[in-house]
């Protein structure tokens, strides 16, 4: 391939990727213009697309994930385990030879070294990148159930464990045999013989089902037939041990069950990630029998993406017609095999004609019934499936037919042809209407209606120069209004400030902000009114879902009308309450509203000076309209974030007053509940009241990141670490762009004493805001110190120290680390350089340093100062590892009691 050629291929490939799968073939027809080899190249590349591919993901493939490259995997124990295996051992088992190697790992033939009677076993060694803990936990849960399976056609599971290098392994009965499809073809079994063999397979699966075990991964390679012709099912229940069913159980959303399954045999519900029942095994058995009887798979697809779609949507070809196909399938090696009507018939019923005749009718119906998309419409059990096959073999009527409308109509017409054509045509009309309805509901919904948007970002509206506050103030009020919908995740405007409307394509902004839809627009003043242009764009394809051009409205009406219309365009299924909240009325005063918009504009920038401006403007707005609830809420929020001129306790008292005032007027404002929750801690140590307030805020607007963020602080403070970390994850998912959330995630891990995860998290802090860098250094330094890595901790803290504003904090932290590391002299030297006079003194760090210097009086003194100042770090003293040395000091316990943090009893 030449570079020029690659550019051509790349351009076409990129264009094809942007189109929906079903339009690609048509597009390539046109674009390649008869250049067959060009088209073949692009198509071959397209087959490597995976369903989880996202432009933003840095994963190259399942094996090539950036996070797989760790720089410190333990070499020693791994080398030992490697040597073990090279010398033929896994745990207490002696390896005889390797049997197979696949996606999950390798399978070995082995025997127990210390066994008196040498039983041969098969050992499945699980690959490294599977979640080891998860596999083992699952295995422990399942092994009793699995060990109870005792059936002549099931290979039992004996044992399991972990190798020295941490690879889980499972020990099973060793079965010598051939995969069922190879066996049938190799022995040229005819249809009847194949059906009989399949019945024994069904008996084994049915037996397991009565013991509450679903196989989940039925496929030919899991069904071996011994030389005596006895089928044995392998890996019963293993899929459950290995498959995380709920993505929620793992932190990595890309790990879904589908990866671990064999997609060709997976049921629609498995593909969709829905609950798995015995009906899934019925389906997989259906695919297996389809293949045994016809030599073909039910769907003709080129890649896994197409397969997944076909399994969910496409009707399988009737088995009796499938055998007339000629197709290329992957062979045992890399070369494909061509299967033809002759090749499949030769090993079954001698000729294609005979095979067609054999399959047509009963067997067609039986297979299609097993393969129905809806699990409820398949055979209710494997037993029913098997019973129908027996019925067919014994020439009795099969159930599969009776269930089919077409079959009934057929019979009816055949028997009473000419007598009741009206009835027939009525049935046919009904069927057509039904099909049409299904088709319409699938294909002709207006764009947007079928695809419910999950997330949206509102970009700052474009304005005339000097009116910038109007642009992001309006965006902010619209975004806040939309947050009242429980179904839509709204990125806070502070995240979208970098992407003003019309400064880039909405699709680009949407990708950057990781949302499904973008609302952007412009606003211009025209006298007392404003002229608004706005559009809602779907990021996936750039289509416009809603727009409003040159609308003239009074400024006060804009927020309500736009948010209501956008909410409707985004989610047609909003509840009445949500609609009311979104269209909630604010103030009647244009002047107050103008001030409010300015306040929000400053508020979103979050720097101390700008917060001060915001507070002033919220207060002015309140002066003009004393019933302006949202202005009180904004004021309360601004106060909890802090301005330097006020002591913490004063700020919190002001926040509390403003929040309570806001709630008196409108008790549905979650911003006010949230601010109240934060203020109640510092004003009154009212943990119960605070929890109630946060819960109310979250109940009102589950998609409000700030509520989750601040609530997590409470949970961490009282040692409910898992809940805290979960709350922060929610905050992060709603607004991944705010550095403070990522930092706090790290801090929550730190306080939960999971230092490695804390470090990982600190290193993930977004680059956006330089100010946070001091925090990254500082927090990393402390985390290294807790791990005892002082040589790493000290340079980090020295860097933190160079940030002049926070000098004393950096110094005090250094003193703490020196003291903790046993270097008392250096610790005292650094301490002597700190002028502990200002209100902002780093009391907690100082307390930590004194703790480790053995000066508990001084440590307690510092904590008392921290308590008096009501400074934020006081909140975490119950869990902070720095204070471990004085946990038993009665004065410390008394402090906890005064803060309402003493443990009961």
């Amino acid at each position: 391939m030449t570079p020029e050629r690659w550019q051509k291929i790349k351009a076409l490939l990129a264009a094809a990727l942007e189109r929906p799968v079903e339009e690609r073939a048509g597009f390539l027809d046109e674009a390649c213009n008869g250049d067959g080899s060009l088209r073949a190249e692009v198509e071959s590349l397209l087959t490597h697309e995976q369903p989880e591919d996202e432009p933003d993901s840095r994963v190259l493939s399942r094996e090539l994930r950036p996070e797989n490259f760790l720089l410190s995997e333990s070499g020693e124990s791994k080398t030992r385990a490697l040597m073990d295996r090279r010398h033929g051992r896994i745990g207490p088992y002696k390896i005889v030879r390797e049997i197979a190697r696949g996606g999950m790992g390798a399978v070995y033939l082995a025997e127990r070294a210390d066994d008196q009677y040498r039983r041969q076993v098969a050992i499945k060694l699980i690959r490294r990148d599977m979640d080891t803990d998860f596999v083992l936990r699952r295995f422990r849960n399942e092994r009793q159930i699995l060990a109870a399976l005792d059936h002549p056609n099931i290979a039992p599971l004996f044992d399991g464990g972990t190798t020295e290098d941490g690879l889980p392994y499972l020990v099973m009965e060793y079965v010598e045999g051939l995969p069922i499809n190879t066996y049938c073809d190799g022995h040229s079994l005819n249809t009847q013989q194949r059906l009989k063999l399949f019945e024994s397979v069904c008996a084994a699966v049915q037996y397991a089902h009565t013991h509450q075990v679903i196989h989940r991964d039925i496929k030919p390679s899991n069904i071996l037939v011994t030389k005596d012709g006895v089928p044995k099912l392998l890996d019963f229940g293993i899929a459950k041990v290995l498959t995380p069913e709920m993505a929620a159980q793992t932190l990595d959303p890309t790990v879904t069950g589908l990866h671990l399954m064999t997609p060709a045999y997976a049921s629609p519900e498995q593909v969709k990630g829905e609950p798995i029942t015995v009906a899934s095994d019925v389906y997989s058995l259906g695919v297996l029998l389809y293949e045994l009887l016809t030599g073909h798979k039910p769907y003709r697809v080129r890649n896994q993406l197409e397969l997944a779609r076909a399994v969910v949507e496409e009707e399988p070809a009737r088995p009796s017609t499938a055998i007339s196909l000629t197709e290329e399938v992957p062979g045992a090696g890399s070369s494909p095999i061509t299967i033809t009507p002759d090749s499949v018939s030769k090993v079954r019923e001698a000729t294609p004609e005979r095979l067609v005749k054999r399959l047509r009718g009963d067997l067609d119906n039986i297979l299609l019934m097993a393969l129905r998309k809806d699990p409820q419409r398949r055979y209710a059990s494997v037993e029913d499936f098997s019973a129908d096959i027996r019925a067919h073999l014994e020439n009795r009527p099969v159930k599969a037919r009776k269930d089919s409308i077409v079959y009934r109509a057929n019979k009816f017409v055949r028997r009473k042809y000419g007598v009741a054509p009206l009835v027939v045509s009525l049935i046919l009309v009904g069927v057509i209407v039904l099909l049409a309805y299904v088709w319409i509901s699938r294909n002709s919904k207006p764009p947007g209606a079928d695809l419910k948007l999950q997330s949206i970002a509102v970009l700052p509206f474009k304005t005339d120069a000097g009116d910038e506050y109007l642009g992001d103030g309006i965006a902010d009020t619209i975004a806040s209004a939309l947050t009242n919908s429980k179904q839509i995740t709204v990125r806070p405007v502070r995240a979208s400030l970098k992407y003003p409307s019309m400064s880039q394509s909405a699709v680009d902004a949407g990708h950057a902000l990781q949302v499904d839809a973008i609302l952007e627009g412009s606003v211009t003043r025209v006298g007392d009114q404003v002229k608004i242009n706005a559009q809602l764009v779907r990021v996936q394809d750039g289509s416009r879902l809603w727009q409003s051009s040159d609308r003239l409205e009074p400024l006060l009406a804009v927020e309500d009308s736009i948010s209501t219309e956008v909410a409707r365009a985004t989610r047609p299924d909003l509840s009445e309450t949500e609609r009311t909240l979104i269209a909630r009325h604010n103030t009647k005063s244009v002047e107050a509203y103008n001030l409010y918009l300015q306040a929000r504009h400053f508020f979103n920038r979050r720097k101390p000076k700008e917060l001060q401006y915001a507070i002033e403007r919220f207060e002015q707005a309140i002066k003009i309209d004393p019933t302006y609830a949202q202005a009180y809420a904004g004021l309360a929020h601004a106060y909890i974030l802090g301005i330097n001129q006020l002591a913490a306790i004063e700020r919190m008292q002001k926040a509390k007053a403003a929040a309570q005032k806001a709630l008196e007027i409108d008790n549905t404002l979650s911003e006010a509940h949230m601010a109240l929750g934060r203020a109640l801690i510092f004003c009154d140590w009212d943990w119960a009241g605070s929890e109630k307030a946060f819960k109310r805020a979250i109940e009102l607007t589950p998609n409000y990141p700030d509520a989750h963020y601040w609530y997590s602080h409470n949970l961490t403070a009282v040692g409910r670490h898992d809940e805290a970390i979960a709350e922060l994850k929610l905050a992060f998912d709603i607004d991944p762009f705010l550095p403070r959330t990522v930092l706090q995630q790290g801090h929550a891990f730190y306080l939960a004493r999971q230092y490695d995860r804390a470090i990982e998290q600190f290193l993930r802090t977004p680059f956006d805001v330089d100010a946070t860098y001091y925090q990254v250094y500082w927090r990393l330094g402390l985390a290294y110190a807790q791990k005892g890595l002082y040589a790493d901790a000290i340079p980090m803290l020295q860097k933190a120290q160079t940030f002049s504003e926070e000098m004393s904090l950096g110094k005090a932290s250094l003193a703490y680390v020196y003291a903790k590391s046993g270097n008392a002299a250096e610790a005292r030297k650094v301490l002597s350089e700190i002028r502990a006079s200002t209100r902002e003194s780093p009391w907690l760090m100082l307390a930590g340093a004194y703790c480790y210097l053995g000066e508990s009086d001084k440590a307690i003194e510092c904590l008392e100062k921290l308590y008096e100042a009501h400074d934020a770090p006081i909140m975490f003293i119950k869990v902070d590892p720095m204070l471990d040395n004085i946990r038993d000091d009665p004065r410390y316990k008394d402090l906890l009691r005064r803060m309402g943090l003493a443990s009961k009893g």
Partner: protein
Amino acid sequence: MDSESPTITQLLVEWSHGSQQALDQLTPLVYDELRRMARTYLQRERSDHTLQATALVHEAYLRLIDQHSVSWQNRAHFFGIASQMMRRILVNHALARAAEKRGGAGEKLSLNEAVDVARQGEVNLIALDEVLQELERLDPQQTRIVELRFFGGLSIEETAEVLRISPATVKRDWSTARLWLRRQLAS
């Protein structure tokens, strides 16, 4: 570091302003630091400390660069070279380990064995490096994009900034490179 010579931060800023000489001086300094850090982490394995390679690039940045005096563009440039180095370090490491195993045991380590001992990552990495060299011949810029994203941990936007191209181009090149790499690796 010698206080007479320019700091890494200064070199980075100069390079961003177009000084090739600054880049020549900067490269070995950053490379040494990355290698030193990588070594430290490898020695630390007994303390059960693991760190992702991309996080290491990030940490090197924190250690080496003075946050006060750099701009967003400087940051991007740093990641530009560091991610390329990270690729070399990881691949060299993988090759060295493979050689060590062969030498140490006096037997040739089969690919299967390598896969087996959970050095899957290393085997894949060596293979990835090979196909990236192929891609380099076809499209050097696209190769850079893969390095920045995969080895440097950069986002689409950050990558665009480093290479001074549009995010849309990065996205296109990344998505197509991903398919191409997969196909080459599968064959």
